[in-house]
């Protein structure tokens, strides 16, 4: 059957569809291949041009060709058509193509639903507050386009107002579902590894320059929440957040050795434990950060032989864990000979001047402590400077740093120090991690950023075990007592948040961080645990998912019931008489005489009478009866009569 004219979409509706498609496609452009974004935007622009000039849509053959060519492009790009990224790319392609064949309302609806689906797809890539806000705006636009499909003459402002209103009306449902829908641990779909390739963070190797790169970023590494009292936050010089431990050196790069889990926590705490909660940003690596040294492990984590805290899987989503640390602790008194041997290993033929100096210490001095003192004194007196842009170093990087350039970043200090100690026969290793952090006065969270990345040294002494020595602190104390900006020469290129001036900007940024953190903690981080905690507070004792589902069903049912009752009250007047009349219209519609929605009872009856003259009297009587029941007063006896006559009416 030919499509009836009333179903064809108008130019105005086409504009709306294009606007909806554009609003759904634009936010996805950074996440699909560039050629696809360009193709999609070109197709939409082409459709807009056709609409503008009121020309015919392209022939079906062209569209089929474009579809296959685009799909082949996606296949070539991703080597598969399955999976999240190729899937989204295909949807983007289809959404750009569909308007080119959208002639009827039904096609328009397909465009709308694709738009809604792509709104969902956007959250595969980002779940920030800004994304959520942008998607809400997109939903308003798409819903307005849906409204325009239903009401071709409505004005744009009315459509937008109506769709915003609908979104507002949906808020209670949204909140209800958000709070009560049973949560599962982790994301519902696996996130691709490459989603995090652009993330910054510490790696498990250190070469000159690798940490100073991080110093240019004020991205947040993690947040920590200590107890509410001021004294609960440890002093700054104890805020060493331990990360990868590097004990192998090839002359230029420090790398970590094969990690073996520690069977038990082999150290003796001194002093009370500090309890805190860490919210770690995704960094695609398994390590977790904790103050040196954690006395109690978070769930699903383990500790390696060099006291590094590891999660069982790489941290690909924001992770929250609680830890208890002892900042004073004796560890590794009974360290195995193998570990100590490896902590002394040095590649030959590197840094002869440093080796000579260290050998001199060893020959002159008797005890390990005295050698350590000599090394410390050397770093204190050598006049080493802290710099974000140290000069490039050659083959003997430690020698050049210590004796020639004397300018370096923490990885130079730590690397050189450990090298010197090893050369003097003291087992030592490099520890990387973060040092310091800053409290956000607006939400009390302790914020550690990438520029807080740091490297320090750990030396093993017979009666003290592994002991932390921070060579950077020896030469440049302000790096530890204040922060990065205080330590580097004036005029260095320091990230905004590390700077000590520009208070207003920093305050704005801190406020924004506090809001974003609330979002992360309560919206993104609303996991089963949080849900349980929240529902407990609402008085649901230990709710399990069955109970939650039941509550959800009951509440949703009640809301729906309420809405239905309200709608029924509104519609009570659409009484039985009208139902009978509409039924007659449908029945005659099948015989080619459908009732137009605007047609009054008399006009429709006249049309039927003209078509079936022998039933003219009957249909006139029926329509008069209906008019009386619907527009006069509803008389039950007459209603029964109407029903009987309509049922019997078979022209």
């Amino acid at each position, binding site marked *: 059957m030919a499509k009836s004219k009333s179903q064809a979409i108008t130019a105005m509706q086409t504009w709306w569809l294009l606007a909806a498609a554009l609003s759904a496609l634009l936010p996805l452009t950074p996440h699909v291949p560039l050629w696809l974004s360009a193709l999609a935007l070109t197709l939409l622009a082409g459709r807009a041009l056709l609409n503008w000039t009121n020309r015919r849509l392209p022939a079906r053959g062209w569209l089929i060709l474009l579809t296959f060519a685009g799909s082949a492009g996606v296949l070539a790009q991703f080597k598969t058509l399955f999976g999240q990224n190729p899937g989204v790319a295909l949807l983007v392609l289809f959404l750009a193509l569909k308007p080119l064949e959208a002639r009827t309302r039904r096609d328009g609806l397909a465009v709308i639903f694709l738009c809604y689906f792509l709104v969902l797809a956007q959250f595969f890539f980002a779940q920030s507050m800004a994304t959520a806000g942008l998607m809400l705006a997109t939903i308003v636009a798409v819903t307005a386009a849906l409204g325009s499909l239903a009401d071709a003459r409505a004005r744009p402002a009315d459509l937008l107002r109506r769709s915003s209103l609908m979104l507002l009306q949906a808020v209670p449902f949204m909140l209800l579902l958000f709070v009560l829908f049973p949560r599962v641990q982790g994301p519902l779909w696996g996130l691709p590894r490459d989603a995090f390739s652009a993330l910054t963070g510490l790696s498990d190797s250190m070469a000159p320059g690798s940490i100073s790169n991080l110093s240019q970023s004020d991205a947040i590494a993690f947040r920590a929440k200590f107890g509410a009292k001021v004294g609960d936050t440890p002093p700054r010089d104890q805020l060493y957040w331990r990360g990868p431990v590097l004990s192998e050196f090839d002359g230029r790069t420090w790398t970590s050795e094969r990690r073996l889990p520690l069977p038990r926590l082999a150290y003796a705490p001194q002093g009370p434990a500090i309890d805190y909660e860490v919210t770690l940003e995704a960094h695609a690596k398994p390590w977790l950060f904790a103050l040196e040294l954690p006395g109690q492990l978070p769930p699903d984590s383990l500790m390696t032989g060099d006291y590094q805290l590891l999660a069982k899987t790489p941290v690909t989503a924001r992770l929250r864990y609680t830890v208890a640390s002892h900042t004073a602790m004796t560890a590794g008194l009974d360290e195995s000979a193998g570990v100590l041997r490896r902590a002394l290993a040095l590649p030959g033929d590197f840094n002869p001047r440093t080796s000579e100096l260290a050998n001199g210490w060893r020959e002159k001095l008797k005890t390990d402590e005295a050698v350590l003192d000599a090394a410390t004194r050397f770093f204190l007196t050598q006049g080493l400077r802290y710099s974000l842009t140290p000069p490039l170093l050659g083959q003997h990087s430690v020698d050049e740093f210590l004796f020639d350039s004397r300018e370096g970043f923490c990885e130079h200090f730590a690397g050189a120090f450990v090298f010197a100690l090893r050369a003097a026969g003291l087992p030592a290793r490099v520890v990387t991690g973060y040092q310091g952090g800053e409290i956000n006065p607006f939400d009390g969270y302790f914020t550690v950023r990438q520029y807080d990345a740091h490297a320090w040294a750990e030396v093993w002494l017979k009666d003290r075990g592994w002991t932390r020595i921070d060579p950077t602190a020896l030469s440049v104390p302000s790096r530890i007592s204040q922060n990065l900006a205080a330590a580097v020469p004036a005029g260095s290129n320091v990230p905004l948040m590390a700077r000590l001036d520009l208070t207003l900007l920093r305050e704005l940024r801190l406020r924004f961080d506090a809001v974003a953190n609330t979002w992360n903690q309560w919206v993104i981080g609303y996991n089963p645990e949080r849900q349980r905690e929240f529902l407990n507070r609402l008085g649901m004792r230990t709710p399990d998912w069955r109970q939650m589902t039941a509550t959800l069903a009951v509440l949703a049912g009640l809301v729906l019931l309420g809405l239905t009752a309200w709608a029924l009250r509104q519609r009570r007047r659409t009484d039985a008489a009208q139902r009978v009349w509409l039924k007659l219209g449908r029945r005659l519609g099948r015989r080619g005489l459908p009732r137009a*929605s605007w047609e*009054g*009872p008399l006009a429709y009856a006249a049309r039927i009478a003209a078509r079936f003259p022998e039933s003219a009297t009957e249909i006139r009587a029926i329509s008069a009866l209906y*008019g009386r029941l619907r527009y006069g007063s509803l008389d039950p006896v007459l209603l029964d009569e109407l029903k009987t006559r309509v049922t019997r009416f078979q022209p």
Partner: protein
Amino acid sequence: MLSPSIRKPLEHVVRATGTVILGKEGQIRLALACLLARGHLLIEDLPGVGKTTLAHALAQLLGLSFQRIQFTSDMLPADILGVSVFDRDSGAFRFHPGPVFTHVVLADEVNRATPKTQSALLEAMEERQVTAEGLTRPLPEPFFVIATQNPSTQIGTYPLPESQLDRFLMRIELGYPDRAAERDLLAGVDRREILAGLQPCLAPEELLAHQKSVRAVQVSEALIDYIQALIAQTREAPDWQAGLSPRAALALLAASRAWAWLEGRDHVLPDDVQTVLPGVACHRLHPAGESIARLSPAEVAARLIEAVPIP
């Protein structure tokens, strides 16, 4: 259902008027509905299609007094409302009521007069009283103005402003008679003779009673929904410069009631609304585009009706 005996005289009016104005039963009924709804009627058409005859016949058949005012460009308000003249015998001013003091006023070619004179009539229409020299004098009841207007494209006209058009409940066009009716007209007796022979079939009091019973015609929620939907459509659709006013909505309802009453029903159907809609709405709506301006009132109304589903 209304008892047919009440409407019988009015059916007679329709039929008898039909003997004078041939082939225009729809317009006659609309004019009568307008009268029953206590509204005033504007007839817009070319000279010579029977506007005056229609007004005259209606007045005569309903037993109402009738005055005709031929509007000219040198006419003054006093020529319509009346004037106070010094009476030497009584030594005081005496008010001589103007032609407006009557049941049916035929304001012929109302758009030939100056706006000042037009508004004198229109104020009397609205308030159903005349205030002259500080004294307010009520007009007789029923009071019904039939104004005729030449299409404003003709020379020498002062078209009625929108606010004054709104005072007329309905505007109808008579149009040329069809071929058969025109032949009867040419072949038959002189219309003036028939007119003179028409006998009143109603007293003014009866007409007032009918007007009252029209106001009692039942209007259901569903019908009010429909009228609201129609009004909303005129306000929302881009076809018109401005939508219909609440006064227009009231006019639509009153006219629909009168039409339903004339049809012998005690309730208003959407069909009644649709029938009176061209007459009530079209002179109040101003098209916003070229394409709509070219449509006839009937086409405009059909466009409006077809855009609004009956709830």
